[in-house]
C-alpha cells in the first residue's frame, strides 16, 4: 500500500483535489464534478489536450494486444472512447463492458455509442471500481483511463480489478502523471492552474470542476508509486510508458 493511501486509511480521510475530506464524502463529491461536466466532457477533452488524448487512447489500445473474442472491461469508461475501439476489435464473439460509477457519464457514453451504431457487443454497468460486481477471473483486459485518480481507495480498486481479471489477463492504467523534465513540469503547472480552470469556466461553465481536475492530477501517485501499488495488488511484470514527456503514463500489469 502506498504511503499516502496507508496514512489515509488509518485516519479515514482522503484527498479531493488539495482538500482533505472524509472517505465517505469523496465519491459523492467526485460524482458532483462528473454530473456537472458530463455533457461537455468530450469537447473539453479535445480542448484541454489539444486532441492528443486520442493518441494516448490509441497507444493504450495498441498496448492492450486485444484480439477478436476477448472480454474487455473499460472501467471509468465515461463517454466510451476506448469502448468504441475495443468493440470493433473484439468482434461478435467478444464483449466490452463499459463501467462507470457516474450515471450521467454512463448515459452520455451510451447515447454516443448507440448513435455510432455500436450496440451488438457492448454492455453498460454502473459500478464502483472498489467493489466490481463481476465474478472472479472474468476479463482478458481491463482498462481504466483517466479514472483511477478519482477513486477513493485506489489499493482496494486495484485489488478488485486483479480479482476479476482472468489469469493471463492484463490491466492498463492510463492516467495523468509527473512530467519528466522540470521545465515541462513548470509549464504544465502554469497551464493547469491558470488556463485550464478558465477554459472550463468558458466552455463548460464550470471552472471549479476543472480546478479539481488540476489538483487531483497533482495528488495522484507518480509513475513509480503507482507501479509499486500495482505490484502490491498482485500484478506481475508491471511496467509503464511515459507519454508526452510524462504528462500521461500508461501502466501495464499482468495477472498470472
Amino acid at each position, binding site marked *: 500500500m502506498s504511503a499516502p493511501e496507508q496514512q489515509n486509511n488509518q485516519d479515514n480521510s482522503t484527498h479531493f483535489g488539495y482538500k482533505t475530506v472524509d472517505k465517505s464524502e469523496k465519491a459523492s463529491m467526485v460524482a458532483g464534478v462528473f454530473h456537472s461536466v458530463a455533457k461537455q466532457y468530450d469537447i473539453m477533452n479535445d480542448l484541454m489536450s489539444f486532441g492528443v488524448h486520442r*493518441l494516448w487512447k490509441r497507444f493504450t489500445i495498441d498496448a492492450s494486444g486485444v484480439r477478436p473474442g476477448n472480454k474487455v472491461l473499460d472501467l471509468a469508461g465515461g463517454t466510451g472512447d476506448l469502448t468504441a475501439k475495443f468493440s*470493433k476489435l473484439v468482434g461478435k464473439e467478444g464483449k466490452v463492458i463499459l463501467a462507470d460509477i457516474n450515471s450521467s457519464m454512463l448515459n452520455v457514453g451510451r447515447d454516443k455509442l448507440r448513435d455510432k451504431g455500436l450496440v451488438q457487443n457492448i454492455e453498460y454497468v454502473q459500478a464502483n471500481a472498489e467493489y466490481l460486481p463481476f465474478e472472479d477471473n472474468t476479463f482478458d483486459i481491463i482498462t481504466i483511463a483517466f479514472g483511477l485518480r478519482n477513486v477513493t481507495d485506489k489499493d482496494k480498486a486495484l485489488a478488485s480489478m486483479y480479482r476479476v481479471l482472468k489469469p493471463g489477463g492484463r490491466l492498463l492504467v492510463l492516467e495523468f502523471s509527473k512530467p519528466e523534465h522540470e521545465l515541462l513540469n513548470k509549464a504544465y503547472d502554469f497551464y493547469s492552474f491558470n488556463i485550464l480552470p478558465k477554459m472550463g469556466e468558458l466552455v463548460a461553465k464550470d471552472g471549479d470542476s476543472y480546478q479539481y481536475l488540476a489538483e487531483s492530477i497533482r495528488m495522484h501517485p507518480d509513475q513509480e508509486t503507482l507501479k509499486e501499488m500495482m505490484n502490491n495488488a498482485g500484478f506481475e511484470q508491471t511496467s509503464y*510508458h511515459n*507519454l508526452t514527456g510524462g504528462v500521461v503514463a500508461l501502466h501495464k500489469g499482468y495477472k498470472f
Partner: protein
Amino acid sequence: MTEQLMLKQALTLLLEKIINKALSLNINDNTELNGLNNKCLTLNLAELNFPLSFIVYQQQILVNSLAENSDCTITTSLKTLKDLQKNQQLTELIKQDKLDINGDIKLAQQFANIAQNLSIDWQSELAKHMGDIATYKLGRVAKTLANKFDFFKNQVQADSSEYIVHEQKLVVTKHQLNDFYQQVTQVSVKTDTLMQRLDALTKK
C-alpha cells in the same frame, strides 16, 4: 522518444481518417467491403519499423499497428507497392524477393480492388462548400495548371534525354581513356630512354 511522441499512433489515426473519408466520398459503391467484415490485412513496409493493419469493420476500415490477428500479411516497400500499381507484375516482384505475401492472397486482391474502385467527384464535393461557379472556375484553373505541368514535365524529359544522347557522343569512352593512358606511358618510357642517352653523352 518516438514512442513518447506517439508517431505510430498519429500515423494510424491519420490514415484511418483519410481512408474512411475517401470511402464515404466514393462515387462507386463499397459493396466489396461487406464480404470482408472483420478481415485483417497487414502491411510490413521496409520504410516503417512497425506493421500497419487494416481491419474491415462494417463499412469502415480501422487502422492500427497490431499484427497478431492478420488474415494476410504483405512484406514489401513503398516503391514496390508503386511498381505493383503501375505494372501488375505481382509474380515477377515475388520472384525478385521484393514482395512477400503470407496468408489469404485473395484478401490482398480484394483490398486492391477496393482501392482501385475509389473514385471521388472532387468538383461536386467542392461545390458544396464553394458554390458551382467558383468550383467550375477553380476546376478550369486546376485543369490548365495540370496540363501545363504535364507539358513541362514531358518537355524536361524530352530535353534531358536528347541532351544525354547528344552529349554521350562527346564524352570520352573508357576505351579511349585506356588508349590515352597507354600512349602517355609509351611517351614516358621514351623520354626516360632519351634522358639516359643524354646523361651518357654529357659524361663523355
